[in-house]
């Protein structure tokens, strides 16, 4: 179990995170917030790259900084900007990461073969990474995060650069992994979180706004989200969420505090996580 206890992080006098309290147990947690809300800061603190200004982060009751390599040994981390050595092949790169993680060479080689297959890079295992596309690089990043069979996975924007097929593959991987470990991931692609996250953590004004299941979050908007014709004027108690395209027709998704008269043009729709995001963070 990973606990974040009264954690505050300040940079040059500005609090990026204030009094954050969270508990993570087995499953997938999605961090959902706009840019600059503190998602990456929180993830970097969980990965021991940043130190809390106040508070502490604990693994099974023990401070993660004091645990040192014992904590980092059970951690798999994919940073937002994944760096690599361009002249290394994926196989060499993963062997290097395995060495850093203290994985025995013979065991590392078997895992590398399996992981390269898992992320669909078996055919490119011995090509230099400088020849790779962004999506292929990201897949190597996902593989390196899994090399030590971590109990805690921290993935910052893991689906960036992945095409839809690769994102589906990634979601399947996470589904399988989350049965017996903690996975914390942040992404701007709300639909990814909706399908794989068991809990969504939303940050606002440097604090944790809420930590709930997607169903609970979306359920609060039940009955309040409607699709209306584009250009329909909004009244009091109504807010534009987004626009959706149906062939040549553009319609608006709006939130309304009061029910609308449903008709051919105005239809109630099931709220989704994107609606919740826009309601929470929209102006």
């Amino acid at each position, binding site marked *: 179990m990973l*606990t*974040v*206890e*009264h954690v505050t992080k300040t*940079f040059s006098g500005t609090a990026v995170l204030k009094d954050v*309290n*969270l*508990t*993570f*147990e*087995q*499953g997938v*947690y999605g961090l959902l917030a706009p840019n600059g809300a503190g998602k990456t800061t929180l993830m*970097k603190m969980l990965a*021991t*790259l*940043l*130190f*809390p*200004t*106040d*508070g*502490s982060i604990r693994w099974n009751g023990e*401070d993660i*900084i*004091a645990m*040192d*390599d*014992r904590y*980092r*040994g059970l*951690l798999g*981390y994919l*940073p937002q*900007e*994944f*760096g*690599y*050595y*361009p002249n290394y092949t994926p196989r060499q790169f993963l*062997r*290097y*990461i*395995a*060495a*850093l*993680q*203290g*994985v*025995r*060479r*013979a*065991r*590392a080689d078997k895992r590398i073969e399996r992981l390269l297959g898992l992320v669909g890079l078996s055919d490119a295992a011995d090509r230099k990474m400088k020849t790779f596309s962004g999506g292929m690089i990201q897949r190597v990043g996902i593989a*390196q995060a899994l090399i*030590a069979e971590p109990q805690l996975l921290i993935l910052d924007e893991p689906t960036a650069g992945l095409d839809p097929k690769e994102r589906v593959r990634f979601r399947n991987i996470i589904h399988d992994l989350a049965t017996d470990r903690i996975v914390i991931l942040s992404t701007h692609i709300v639909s990814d979180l909706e399908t794989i996250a*068991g*809990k969504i953590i939303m940050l606002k004004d440097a604090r*944790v706004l809420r*930590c709930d299941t997607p169903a609970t979050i979306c359920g609060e908007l039940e009955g309040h989200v409607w699709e209306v014709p584009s250009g329909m004027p909004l009244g009091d108690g109504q807010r534009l969420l987004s626009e959706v395209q149906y062939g040549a027709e553009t319609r608006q998704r709006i939130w309304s505090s009061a029910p609308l008269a449903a008709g051919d043009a105005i239809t109630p729709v099931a709220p989704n996580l994107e609606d919740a995001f826009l309601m929470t963070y929209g102006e």
Partner: protein
Amino acid sequence: MARHISAGGKPGKPPPRAASQGRFMAPRRESGRSWPVAVWELRRIVRFPALWGFLAVCLLLNSWALLASVSGWRADVDYAIEVTQRLGTTVDDRFVARLEAEPASVERDELMQYVQSALGPGYEGWDPIAAGDRYAAKLNEQGHPHLALQMQLKARWVQSRARHLTAVGADDDFLAGRISTVLHGAAATLMQTILLESMILGSLIVLHAVGGDWFHRMTPLICASRTGRRTVTCRLAVGIGCALAAYAVLGAGFLAVWVLAFRIPGLWGANVSSRMFGVTTDAGLQPFITWADFSVGGYLCASLGLGMLFVLAFALFAGTLGLLLRSVLAAFGGVMAFGAAGLVAMMFVHDALAYQLLGIQPMYALANANLWFSDMHMHAVVPWQETIVMLISTAYCAIALVVARRAYSRKDLT
């Protein structure tokens, strides 16, 4: 599954790190061998193509420069070889008589003139106390009476050494005859060149080892791994080791060319303090009095050893800047600026006290490379000053690196 914890957090700053040894091996999670991280770091440096290119160019240029600088003296070198084979390597009365009996030639006449004039018969006509008094007078003019006293004390030590060298017959060694000064000058110039090359290359190697991660954005991955920030200790050790190895290659190249080019019998075993070799100073032509008995071979080896301290000091400094600055370019610029400032100070500071104080840095040794292990005239006030300065410089660079390393352990990696 998740709940908010309402209380219980400890304030603050990061608690003390768990005691962890500075191991270079990745901590073992499983039983059995794992490929040491140090080997990976070494491999990364060795596969840096610019390293080999730089080394090859330096070796070629150094060899060419050395051979070119003495090419005009080839005839004298060849004559010196002939003379020592026929007449021996001790310049005594018997040597002079046999040289007079040699067939007349321009080389013979020039060598005869040099033998008879170079610093006179041994050091008997030379007065180190008078030289010391002249240096002391200059220091008094500058308003540094304490330095003047120290200089006079040093002159007495030099006199004691001169008596010892006379007693062991060191001043009678032939060395390389009349081109002894030329060969020493060429060796000193090449030594300075090798030191500068090693300083640049060594700094680049260390910065590549330590700073390359920022460039490739690998730092978060590496520091979040089990080995974590200890990786940087491993990289520093490997980088500094490689910097010293590069210097050793350049030094070995220098020695190899020197040995091949100057096979004058008896040269390597001759004492460097022979009267055949002198140094021009403010007090006129002075013998090269060393603080220990050095053969030519021993002197070159000792010089290469001191040079290794010079390279080590800059490698440590480069490591310090590599940890403190994210930009490899900025760190390299900092190292070069430190070196340039030191060299400028040594070249343009005329006040003796300022010179001594500003000289507690590696460039003092570089600027005086032609006088190492000797009394160094106005440039030193104590024996072995170049060695003491290098030891102090290396020590404070090492301390700076330790402090930077500790700061790195607690640094936010944004």
